[in-house]
């Protein structure tokens, strides 16, 4: 039985969600809607008496003070257009799930699996809009065709036939589950075609390796005994494809690379990962006894303070976010939360970070097929990460938003999570875990559906107009929060031996990894709880349905584990047993459907051989005619309103950055809580001053000149940011997240050799800088196919490396913020300023790239960072702010505006490399620099503490609101705090 309950506000004064929709219609779509009203629709598919329906409407679904409701009767009236949108069958409907529980409570009813609640939103619009415009509102604002259905009804149509019938969204898959043998043809073209058609993303070499493996006589005999066909079953082939996907196997980072440099010298690099990333950590390890677990687990773990460790992981979720920005981004954040839950014996997530890269929200050219406008992407990605983080009760403490129109083809959505774990749990090191043959295979959390099938293989392919719909998932933070709470209790009680998350590749990936611990497993796919019937066994194995963790539970703990799960309302299921047979075995209704040799599964994939050729590109310098006689004040103010520099406050404020009560340096600081902090410091143990610092660096534009310097500067920026708030160099650890365009030469990527060379150079820089800074890498991830389309219309992201840094801060009460604090304080510039405007924000404003990309002097910088740390420990600094995008000017302006205090400085006092132009002094993005302020009484002590490093006192903080920048007698910029705020605050306050 289907019933519709509709709920509307009694008065427009409480319909603020509708006001926001109206604002978006007018401002984003520039359509002349005059008014909007929102009606929430709940479709109840269950047998209810009219009394019960009335009670549900009255007691549960509407608010008696502000809302009105109707039962099976439309509330809509007085509109020009009605738009109703709701999820397609099978798409996660979180509100519907909560509503279903509410109905059961309210009516005291036990509901069956088939009893469901579905939600829809109905928007009534008034204004002179035509049908085409109403449809545009539906498709580009209110609904995403990929996951939602919508209808548009005009006033006339409604008057003729009012009302919308209640519709079921029950998933019916008219399919009897089956297992197919996949015959692998010998013909290479046919073999490749098979991989493409099945969306396996396997290369010909890989398909041939699989074919050869199954053709081995001994294997054929074994399979015959088991009743398995000679060729792989779909279960087996899909499992191999997931395990061997770029996403899971990092084939490009494991490949042999033939790198030829500018001089024509060639060398072979056996695995970028081993040669650079793992190598630098191995090199630093003797100096970093605090490393606990690196590269092997879901996240890296380092020692924090007496009895406690911290973990960190950063991930990307680019492809899903491009298709369904809300669901994709939310899945990104709740997914990386699970990496922390599944790290060691299970860490408690204590903070999130997020970094987004988009095209300009004001992009005004046509957007290619299947892509969303960057403004919509931005809003929806932000909403997904916000809901995911906020609803999970994890504070978002650090991040940034970077704009470059090449991110039109693929936005980059980086999500990171930090975790806390006792160093020992039940007497054992918490970062170690194992599985014994005979342990139960237990899955906990959400149910399995067709969502996210082929997510791992799909993210390993370029987006095209034919990208699969089923690759999309929507996160369910509340189901995950319940599981998190349960898991931490089970951990304390010692009820499991091993835990890991279900992410890309689903069970095939989590259990594939887990089975390596014991040496095999017997998995009963039909015992996994499904969202709906009709899934083939292979789909159950590779589905990426969210909110699931896999556990190894010793048989003697199973009952206690099960009881606790029941008391925490967490669904768990016993899927079989871990074994030591060397085989990954799956059964469906007791019949064998998969028997894979574990060695072949994990190590049988052929290595890639990739060529890389480096040629430096020369760019035009901005013409002298453009650089001459510029109005520097206008330039300075314009720069403050550029997208990469202006305030992100209106977005960041929507993140809960304080839940768990541990923030010490918040994202915002200063006299009015609106200055942008360099990094975050949290204090995860309430009774101790020990803090954790988290910072990041990201400068994709420098790749236009040389990806080596892009990567070097990303490391330096992350270090600088951490040091700026009080972190100690030498005690920090880093994470690398590479997001590259496809770097493998092919007909669709003719410049693959250059892109691969960029990747090699970025890795070399990462190695060089981490070695110089004693900065071990503890975890990382790469996303290598960030392109859209083919041929001439291909849009590739600029090669992008995100460096995240975490580390302990022994005394968080010594931390420093970036705002000027007292009039009379002395302002210093630390670090050497060079003529390094290449690929800077200033040149970008002039529509130039140039060639003088900033270069990192690691030795000088480290020396400075160490001294600065010591000075901070002696409480000698009032404020510290790093210089990055926009150079010295932007740091100065930000410290001023944050403190609501003016300043007067003389740039002729700056330590500079040769005689720099005014423009270079102001806007050069030389690395390793800070703007700091020091009280007059501490000036002498500070100067002696910093002796030997480039340092110059350039002026004073003043009580007036004037910001005056001179060069000796010449006034370069004279402005006010208010004028600066006026430029800096509004541009992204959308």
């Amino acid at each position, binding site marked *: 039985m289907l019933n519709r309950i509709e709920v509307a506000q009694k008065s427009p004064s409480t319909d603020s969600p509708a006001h926001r929709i109206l604002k978006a219609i007018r401002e984003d779509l520039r359509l002349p809607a005059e008014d909007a009203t929102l009606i929430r629709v709940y479709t109840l598919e269950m047998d209810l008496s009219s009394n019960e329906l009335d009670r549900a409407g009255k007691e549960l679904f509407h608010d008696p003070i502000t809302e009105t409701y109707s039962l099976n009767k439309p509330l809509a009236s007085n509109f020009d257009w009605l738009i109703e949108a709701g999820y397609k069958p099978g798409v996660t409907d979180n509100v519907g799930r*909560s509503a279903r*529980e509410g109905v059961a*409570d309210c009516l005291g009813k036990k509901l069956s699996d088939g009893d469901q609640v579905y939600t829809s939103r109905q928007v009534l619009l008034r204004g002179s809009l035509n049908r085409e415009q109403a449809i545009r509102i539906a498709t580009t604002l209110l609904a995403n065709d990929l996951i939602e259905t919508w209808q548009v009804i005009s006033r006339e149509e409604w008057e003729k036939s009012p009302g919308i019938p209640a519709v079921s969204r029950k998933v019916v898959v008219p399919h009897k589950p089956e297992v197919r043998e996949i015959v692998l043809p010998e013909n290479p073209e046919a073999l490749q075609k098979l991989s493409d058609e099945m969306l396996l993303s396997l290369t010909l070499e890989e398909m041939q390796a699989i074919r050869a493996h199954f053709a081995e006589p001994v294997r054929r005999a074994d399979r015959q005994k088991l009743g398995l066909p000679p060729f792989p079953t779909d279960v087996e082939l899909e499992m191999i494809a997931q395990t061997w996907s770029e996403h899971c196997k990092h084939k490009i980072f494991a490949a042999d690379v033939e790198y030829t440099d500018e001089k024509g010298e060639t060398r072979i690099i056996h695995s970028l990962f081993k040669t650079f990333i793992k190598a630098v950590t191995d090199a630093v390890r003797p100096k970093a006894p605090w490393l606990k677990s690196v590269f092997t687990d879901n996240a890296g773990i380092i020692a924090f303070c007496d009895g406690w460790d911290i973990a960190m992981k950063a991930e990307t979720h680019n492809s899903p976010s491009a298709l369904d920005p809300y669901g994709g981004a939310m899945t990104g954040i709740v997914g990386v939360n699970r990496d922390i839950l599944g790290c060691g014996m299970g860490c408690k997530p204590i903070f999130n970070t997020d970094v987004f890269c988009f095209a300009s929200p004001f992009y005004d050219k046509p957007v290619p097929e299947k892509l969303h406008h960057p403004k919509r992407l931005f809003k929806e990605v932000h909403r997904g990460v916000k809901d995911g983080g906020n609803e999970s009760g994890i504070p978002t403490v650090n991040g940034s938003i970077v704009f470059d129109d090449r991110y039109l083809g693929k936005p980059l959505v980086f999500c990171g999570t930090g975790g806390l774990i006792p160093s020992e749990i039940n007497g054992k090191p918490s970062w170690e875990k194992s599985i014994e043959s005979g342990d139960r295979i237990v899955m906990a959390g959400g149910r399995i559906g067709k969502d996210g099938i082929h997510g791992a293989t799909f993210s390993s392919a370029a987006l095209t107009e034919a990208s699969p719909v089923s690759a999309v998932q929507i996160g369910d933070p*509340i189901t995950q929060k*319940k599981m998190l*709470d349960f898991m931490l209790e089970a951990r304390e009680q010692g009820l499991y031996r091993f835990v890991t998350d279900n992410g890309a590749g689903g069970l095939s990936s989590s259990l594939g990894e887990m089975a390596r611990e014991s040496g095999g497993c017997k998995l009963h796919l039909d015992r996994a709880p499904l969202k709906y019937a009709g899934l083939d066994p292979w789909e159950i194995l590779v589905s990426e349905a969210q909110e699931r963790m896999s556990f190894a539970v010793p048989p003697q703990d199973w009952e206690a584990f099960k009881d606790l799960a029941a008391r925490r309302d967490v669904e768990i299921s016993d899927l079989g047993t871990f074994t030591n047979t060397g085989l990954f075995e799956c059964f469906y209704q007791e019949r064998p459907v998969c028997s894979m040799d574990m060695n072949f599964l994990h190590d049988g994939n052929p290595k890639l051989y990739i060529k890389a050729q480096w040629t430096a590109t020369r760019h035009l310098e901005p013409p002298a005619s453009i650089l001459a006689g510029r109005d520097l004040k206008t330039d300075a103010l314009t720069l403050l309103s550029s997208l990469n520099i202006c305030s992100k406050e209106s977005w960041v404020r929507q993140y809960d950055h304080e839940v768990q*009560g541990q923030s*010490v340096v918040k994202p915002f600081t200063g006299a009015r*809580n609106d200055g942008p902090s360099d990094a975050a410091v949290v204090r995860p143990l*309430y009774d101790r001053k020990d803090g954790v610092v988290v910072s990041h660096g990201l400068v994709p534009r420098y790749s236009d000149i040389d990806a080596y310097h892009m990567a070097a500067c990303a490391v330096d920026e992350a270090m600088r940011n951490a040091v700026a708030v009080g972190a100690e160099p030498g005690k920090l650890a880093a994470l690398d997240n590479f997001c590259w365009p496809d770097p493998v030469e092919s007909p669709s990527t003719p410049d693959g050799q250059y892109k691969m060379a960029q990747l090699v150079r970025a890795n070399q820089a990462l190695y060089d800088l981490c070695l110089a800074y004693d900065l071990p890498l503890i975890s990382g991830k790469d996303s290598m196919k960030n392109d859209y389309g083919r041929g001439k219309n291909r849009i590739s992201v600029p090669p992008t490396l995100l460096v995240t840094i975490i580390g302990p801060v022994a005394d968080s009460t010594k931390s420093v913020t970036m705002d000027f604090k007292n009039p009379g304080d002395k302002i210093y510039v630390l670090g050497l300023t060079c003529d390094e405007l290449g690929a800077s924000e200033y040149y970008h404003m002039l529509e130039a790239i140039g060639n003088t990309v900033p270069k990192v002097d690691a030795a000088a910088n480290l020396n400075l960072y160490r001294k600065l740390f010591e000075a901070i420990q002696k409480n000698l600094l009032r404020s510290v702010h790093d210089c990055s995008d926009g150079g010295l000017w932007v740091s100065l302006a930000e410290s001023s505006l944050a403190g609501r205090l003016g300043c007067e400085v003389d740039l002729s006092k700056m330590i500079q490399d040769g005689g720099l132009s005014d423009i270079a002094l102001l806007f050069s993005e030389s690395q390793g620099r800070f703007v700091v302020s020091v009280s007059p009484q501490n000036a002498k002590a500070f100067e002696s503490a910093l002796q030997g490093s480039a340092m110059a006192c350039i002026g004073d903080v003043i009580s007036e609101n004037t910001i005056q920048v001179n060069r000796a007698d010449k006034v370069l910029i004279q402005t006010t705090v208010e004028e600066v705020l006026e430029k800096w605050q509004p541009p992204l306050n959308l």
Partner: protein
Amino acid sequence: MTAPRIAVLTGYGINSDAELAHSFNLAGGKAERVHLHDCIDGHVRLEDFDILAVPGGFSFGDHIASGKVFANRLRYKLGDQLLRLREKKIPIIGICNGFQVLVKLGLLPGTEPASFTQTCTLTYNDSSRYEDRWCYLRTETGTPSIWLKGIERLYLPVRHGEGKFIPGSAELLKSLEASKQTCLRYYLEDGSLPPEGPDGFPANPNGSTAHVAGLCSSDGLVFGLMPHPEAHVLATQHPRWHRDGLKIEGDGLQIFRNAVNYLLRG
């Protein structure tokens, strides 16, 4: 009397339970995090505690309306126990999502005798946005709230998307103001009331009627507020301690100390 025992509810998306429990402990109480499911299936009895605290968070994801589904479960699964808590004069606090739960249950501002009749609501912020922002607050002189005894001003963060207070009627607001049950309001930094309407933002972060940030029952024992006192018990939680120096403790701690002392002194 020994340290009062506080039941801090958890589960289903509540997320500020750890810091709330810590706050009560700092104030001299003995807090236990109690899972709602354990209360419903009888593992735990709320009546065995001296104080009930409903923390902030996103119970059931704020779905349908914030606090609604959780309030609904409390009412239908634990209603009798809750009414007995009121009879036994056990202090109750609801913070943010917990405040939304108590208002939607009808326990705030409450009826005489206690019943599950909702008379006010907390709904969408005028901005229609979830925001995390610090607010200046003042307490109503002469309020019966035992939780606010001796407190005049507070500086606390709000973190919500649905905190706009709306009374069921103008008369109800008048009577709540007369009985000082509108015990906490948003103010400007200088201690004056924010302007009415949109100009009141951001001092009044959500557009609450009469700038109301918190309510108490007529006997002063039940107290709810949108801002988070448990997020300002440590001096390092203040957003400007780097500028203004570290205080001995955060503003919010006194609220918890008041409740603990109320019980200790009988």
